[in-house]
């Protein structure tokens, strides 16, 4: 294997566009929150002492609980802390957090409406090099049937910080998929997200690109490329998958936009499905293209190779958007 083809995600660092001065965004935001309030606690199953959250552990050692390699226990422990007045964050590997802890999330956190924020790190294909066990392509589908759990996906660091702060401010159960290693920055400053509301990133007139997480970052890049070829694209960040902003979606579809849906998730059980379901239930016909991952076994490789293999690329979005806008 040639060395230039390898750009790996170090599983114990947070190498997304996330790396910024002063430490990774998750740790920095936790520190910020812990200075503001004394009920912030971080719980992590043998995964906290890396660059993503180490800064927080050093700053607030008493506010960190390592649960060892025991994800399910982490979530129930967090529920116990939340029921005692704390605002716990559970930081876990995306491939394991929702699949392994689905029942603890549903029964202990969501059903009791406890203020626990679950952070899925290295989700999607970020750990794609480590094997099929480490792909995380179904978290949205596992979680979206759980009443009272909000689900969000951060496009970049700024979005991650805003979502973490929103989780604490709202005081409700929240699952956040942390930004992808492949994401470029979408936001500057602090995007003022409202729970359940999509965010209009770019306004255009020819086609609408609707992304979540890495999808949003790719949509922004695709919109810039489309602009050069004379196509004006709207970009919507579906930052919350639940509650889902059907109003914004239906407004765009109702105005006749063709829609390109972009997600680093199984398209048969994620954002594209949500979009199709929402439009169908409201009887709105729309031209729809999905860019995402197949409902199938995926290859094992570093993230960028996998994104290229499965067409989760700016080029694929541009091509589909051109097809829709020319119709």
């Amino acid at each position, binding site marked *: 294997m040639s060395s230039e083809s390898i750009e790996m995600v170090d599983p114990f660092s947070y190498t997304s566009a996330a790396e910024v001065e002063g430490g990774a965004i998750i740790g920095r935001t936790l520190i910020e929150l812990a200075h503001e309030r004394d009920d912030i606690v971080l719980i992590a199953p043998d995964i906290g002492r890396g660059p993503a959250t180490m800064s927080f552990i050093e700053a607030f050692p008493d506010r960190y609980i390592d649960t060892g390699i*025991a994800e399910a*226990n982490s979530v*129930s*422990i*967090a529920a116990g802390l939340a*029921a005692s*007045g*704390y605002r716990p964050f559970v930081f876990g590997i995306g491939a394991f957090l929702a699949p392994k802890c689905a*029942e603890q999330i549903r029964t202990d956190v969501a059903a*009791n409406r406890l203020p626990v924020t679950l952070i899925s790190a290295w989700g999607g294909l970020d750990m794609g090099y480590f094997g099929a066990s480490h792909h995380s392509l179904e978290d949205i589908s596992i979680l979206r049937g759980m009443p009272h759990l909000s689900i969000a996906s951060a496009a970049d660091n700024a979005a991650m910080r805003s979502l973490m702060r929103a989780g604490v401010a709202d005081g409700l159960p929240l699952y956040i998929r942390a930004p992808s290693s492949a994401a470029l920055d979408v936001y500057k400053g602090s995007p003022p997200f409202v729970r359940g509301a999509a965010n209009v990133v770019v306004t255009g007139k020819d086609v609408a690109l609707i992304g979540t997480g890495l999808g949003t970052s790719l949509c922004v890049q695709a919109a810039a490329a489309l602009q050069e070829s004379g196509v004006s694209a709207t970009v919507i960040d579906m930052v919350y998958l639940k509650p889902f902003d059907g109003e914004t979606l239906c407004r765009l579809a109702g105005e006749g936009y063709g829609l390109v849906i972009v997600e680093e998730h199984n398209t048969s059980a994620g954002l594209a499905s949500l979009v199709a379901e929402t439009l169908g239930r409201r009887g709105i016909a729309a031209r729809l293209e999905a860019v995402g991952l197949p409902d199938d076994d995926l290859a094992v490789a570093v993230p960028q190779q996998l994104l290229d293999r499965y067409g989760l690329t700016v080029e694929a979005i541009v091509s589909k958007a051109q097809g829709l806008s020319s119709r």
Partner: protein
Amino acid sequence: MPDSTKSPSPAKTRQRPCSIQELRRRAEWIRLETIRQIAGAGLGHYSSTFSAAEILAVLYYRTLRLDPANPQWLDRDRFLLGKGHIAVGLWPILADLGYFPRAWLEDFGKIDAPLTDHPNMRDVPGIDFSSGSLGHNLSVGAGMCLASRLRSGGERAFVLLGDGELHEGQLWEAAMLASHYKLGNLIAIVDANGSSANGPTSDVMNIEPIAGRFEAFGWRAVEIDGHDVARIVEVLDGLPDSKSDVPTVIVARTLKGKGVSFMEASPRDWHLGFLGPADRQRAEEEIRSRMT
């Protein structure tokens, strides 16, 4: 953290001077109330409630530091019903202590009623955490004990487990964590009635030696007769201070269906069932005969 809310009324603090004889009567009363509620609901868990009647009586009428007038009092002891299916035995106690009107008992098990087969913390004052999925509540209790440590509180968490519940893997994750974090404020009580849904617990999957297993996980273990009220009182009165650093498990050896001879004889038939009028009368007469 929120400040501690108002202090409890003195009568509601822990280790109330409830005599052994009163506690024995209380356990029998729990059995009668269980039968009465299930008669209204049409289906319920008798025998695994009966195995825990003495434990519930001592906890709620003597041990737990509570303030029913202020269910969210921050310094209260927490009680978690790991074996959530015996909530029917808890409801009369909570009503009697004043957490909610006694009239609620009449609607046990009915649609939209707050009192359900398994407890829901969002619906019933006095329930510190919901349960129903076995194996979760020891973790939740450990989380509450960690919270207490973080705020330098003095409260304890008591988690009542079924012995079949010990089959659950997560429970042992919690057991490992509790000793690692030196949670002397966590007390697990195993209602070791020796029976799970499909047979004798250890025939289904061996759990013995229960005390030895917990000790291997760094716990202090005490084994008692779970129907010997005086012994339960002795052990719960003698628990180490909440600031101590070793969690305690009390392995209470019990009889499933205890107190009603035909249930003791075939306990699994009465795990989930309904007493017809004649059987109900037999059961109640037998229980009442011990209350005089």
